[in-house]
Structures are given as C-alpha cells and as structure tokens.
C-alpha cells in the first residue's frame, strides 16, 4: 500500500522551470508495513522498525492505537473464566504434544476445541511454553545444549568469548546504590574468579527493583541453578553441587516497576576448594 504526496501548484506569477517540473513529477512514496505487522508493535511494543514508521505516519499510528482497544475488549472476558478442573481437561502428554507442535491436524482438532473453552488448560499450555524457555532442558550437558546461543543468547555468548575472567583490580565491588538515571543493571559481587567455596551469591541492588532472577550455568551452557528473590543475595541450595576445578558462570537480572528488566554481565568463577 502506498500513498502519493500531492504536487503543489505554483501561482500565476511564478514561471515553472524545467527543474521545478522534475520536482513536481517526482513522487514521494511512503511505504506502509503490512497491517498484520502492526500487531506485535501495537500489542507488545517490540518492533522498533514499525515504531519509527508510526512516528511519521498518521494512518498507521491510528491503527496502532485502535488495535489495543479491541484487544482489551477480548481480555475483559477473563473475568468470566473459571480455572476449575473438568474430566475433559488435558493430561500432561497432550499439553506437551500441543506445545511442541507434535499434533497433526486430526489429533489437534479435539485439543483445540477443549482449549477454546478451558482457561485451566490454556494456562497450563502457556506456562509449559514459558517454562521450557526459562529452565535448563537436561542439566546433563548433552550435545544439544552445548551450543551457547540457546541458553545464553548471542550477546551473552559474545561477552563470554571476550574472556571476562579474570578482571583483577578493575572489578566493581562497591555496594552503594548508583544514582537513579534510568534502568541500571545489578552487578554480581560474589562469587567471582577463584573461590574456595560457594554457599551464596551476592549482587548490588538496583533502585526500585521488585525482584531479581539469578541464573547459574555450567561450562557447557546448561543452567545448573535459577532462583528468583526480592533480596540481593541468595543461598545456594545443597542440592546444587559445584565441582572443584570446573568453571561456572552466573548473571542476575533485576525487574523493576513496569516490568522493565536489566541484566548484569555474565561472571565467571571457579571453585578451588573442596565441595561441602
């Protein structure tokens, strides 16, 4: 879809030159994104390309404003949704098959029909999808999970390859709260570099942070521990056993108001003492 800017008309006292004619003839075309491309930006706010276009396009900006209004009407209906269990509710295998996209059209039809009427099972489906993204899939470091990009993301992988460890005297270890200039990231305090023993992780606080999430990885990129806490320290459970001589990594993410998050750098450490 395009729209052409209308050519201006010169007054009777102005002589139209050849170059002016060229300018008039040159059409300025504005290209709009496909209407469906407005959806993720309108509902989730996560498309910078569309965001830039919308700033200068009244048509698309109006559409972006209308979409959430209609979406809000659909969400209003949540007040009527009961989450009680019924005999028709899906078992875990059906939920997993649906989430993993393993059902063909015939097998999927009755699952879809049930999910349309069951808030309980929809919640289970949504949470299962979320969980497999947040939690380590094996913890045994199988071949599929040695790829850095899956558990850590490309940015974190790049940081790792730049060899953060050791940092020596340049380490930021202070615990004072920095001035509030925006969403600042927490800084891992301990453990870092070589440590005899790890019984807790500690980090700096972030102003207005409501929750922190810590994730610890082994050398093959598998998540060995994850915890969420409103504190700035978390005790390492005795069930998480760190092997002497191996390198581990951890990072902490702060969630502030309005669900903004800020993640620390990935920090490396090695346990040199005996395991507890």
């Amino acid at each position: 879809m395009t729209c052409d800017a209308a050519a201006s008309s010169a007054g009777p006292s102005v002589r139209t030159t050849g170059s002016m004619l060229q300018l008039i003839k040159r059409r300025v075309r504005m290209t709009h994104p496909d209407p469906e491309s407005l959806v993720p930006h309108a509902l989730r706010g996560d498309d910078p390309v569309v965001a830039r276009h919308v700033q200068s396009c009244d048509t698309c900006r109006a559409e972006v404003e209308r979409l959430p209004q209609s979406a809000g009407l659909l969400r209003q209906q949540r007040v009527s949704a009961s989450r009680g269990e019924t005999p028709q509710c899906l078992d875990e295998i059906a939920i997993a098959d649906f989430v993993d996209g393993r059902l063909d059209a015939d097998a999927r039809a009755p699952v879809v029909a049930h999910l349309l009427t069951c808030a309980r099972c929809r919640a289970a489906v949504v949470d299962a999808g979320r969980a497999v993204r947040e939690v380590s899939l094996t913890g045994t470091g199988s071949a599929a999970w040695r790829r850095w990009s899956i558990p850590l993301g490309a940015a974190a992988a790049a940081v790792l390859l730049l060899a953060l460890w050791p940092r020596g005297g340049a380490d930021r270890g202070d615990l004072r709260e920095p001035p509030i200039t925006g969403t600042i990231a927490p800084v891992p305090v301990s453990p870092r570099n070589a440590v005899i023993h790890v019984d807790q992780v500690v980090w700096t606080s972030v102003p207005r942070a409501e929750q922190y999430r810590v994730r610890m990885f082994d050398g093959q990129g598998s998540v060995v521990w994850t915890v969420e806490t409103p504190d700035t320290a978390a005790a390492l459970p005795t069930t998480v056993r760190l092997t002497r001589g191996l390198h581990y990594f951890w990072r902490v993410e702060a969630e502030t108001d309005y669900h903004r998050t800020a993640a620390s750098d990935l920090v490396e450490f090695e346990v040199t003492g005996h395991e507890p």
Partner: protein
Amino acid sequence: MEEPWIAPLEADDPEAAWDLFIERYRRLIFGAIRRYTAEHDEVMDVFARVCEALRENDFTRLRRCAAHVEPGRPISTWIVAVVRNLTIDWFRHRDGRPRLSAVADALPPTRKQIFLYVFVEQRSHVEAYELLRSRDGAELSFGEFLKELNETYRAAGAGRRGRLVEELGGDAPEIAVDPNVEPAELGEQQRALAAALESLSPEDRLAVQLYVVDGMPADQVARALGYPGTKTVYNRVYRALAAVRSRLEQAGIKAGDL
C-alpha cells in the same frame, strides 16, 4: 536424544530406570519448581512430592511417558507440565495449603475471601463476586469488587511465591474494564465478541485467544497450531481485532465506551 531410563523400565527394572531418570532430569525438575517458589524448604518438599508422584502405582506416569517417547524428541515439556500440575496441587490441596492460607490471613476480610475463591478454589472473578454477595453478604458493586480484586492480586503476587500465585489465580482483570459495568453486561459483550469471531476457524480463534488474551509468544502459538510462522498469527489476530471493532461499531459501541 536417547532416553537411557526407558530400557531398564521396559526390562522390569524400574529402580534402575528411576536412578537414570532422576540423574538426568533432577536439575530440570528443581528449576521448574523454583519458578513457582523461592522458599528452599518448599522447593524440597515439592520435589519430594514430584518424585513420589512419578513413582506412584509402579511408575505409571513414567511408563506412560516412555510409551509416548519418540527418538530424538526431548521430554522436557512433559516434565515441566507435570511439575506445574504437581506444584499447584501441592499448594492447593496438600501440605502447602497452610502456606497459602498464611497469605490469605494477611489480607483484610473482603480480600481474604476473594483470595480463597479465586486463588484457592480457582473460581472465575464473576463467580467470586456472586459468592461474595450471596454467601458473605458483601454489599459492593462489581466495579468496587474489581478494585478489591486488583488489590488482592497485587498483595498476593508480591511475595516469594509470586509466580505460583499467578498460576493459581490467572491474570488480573483487564484494567480497562468499565467499573460501572455489571456481570450481566459482560455476558452480552461476550456474546457479541463470540459472534464477531465466528468467521474464524477454531484454530484461528485459539491463536487469537492464546496470543492476545493469554500472552503466549507468537512463535510458540505458530508452532503449537502448525502455522508456517508468526506472520500467520499476526494476520489472524489482525483480522480478529478488526472484526471485533467492526461488529461492535455496528452495535453502536465503541471500545472507549466499555
């Protein structure tokens, strides 16, 4: 990905199978439990319950999973789904119930009742409102109830079991709900919305429900429903929202009026 625990299970050596299974998936199970609670003792108690449930009745759950496994297919989604159900069940019905009650006890009387109806008994918000009025004699409008409900969500979700509480109670009511609307009017809206969406196939309606209402990422919706990609999800959502707007405009209702 091979599942080494299946062979001993099928060879009638379930204890050996169990050892291999728990060695492989212990960390996943812990990680899945910790999504719901940060309390160390609760994590350990729920882990014990998960192990108990997976071993129950001669490892019935594990055997059903084993019968369903395909070579190269991870079972992680199944495991997190099992953990979720068992964790919620533990808090609602078993040893974790006193912990939920402790959350409720810290609330003022009306919000305590709301918590019990919505989060423990998992009733809909409308049901909870009707019960508050009929059983508990509360005299409050639906709009006032929604304010109390939102405050209950805020208080309940603030603790170390925030994610668990979210899973128990579902999403808080939409902020834009008209405080003057009554449940009966919401029913009429629901019928109008259903009529607006009836031109979509059941799968497309579910795509809209999962993405718009339940917050599932578009790529996961696409994978679950067998769509070629996220663009299909956005296309269905766009059509649905346009149909909703058109239908309601025909009825003389604008989104801002509701």
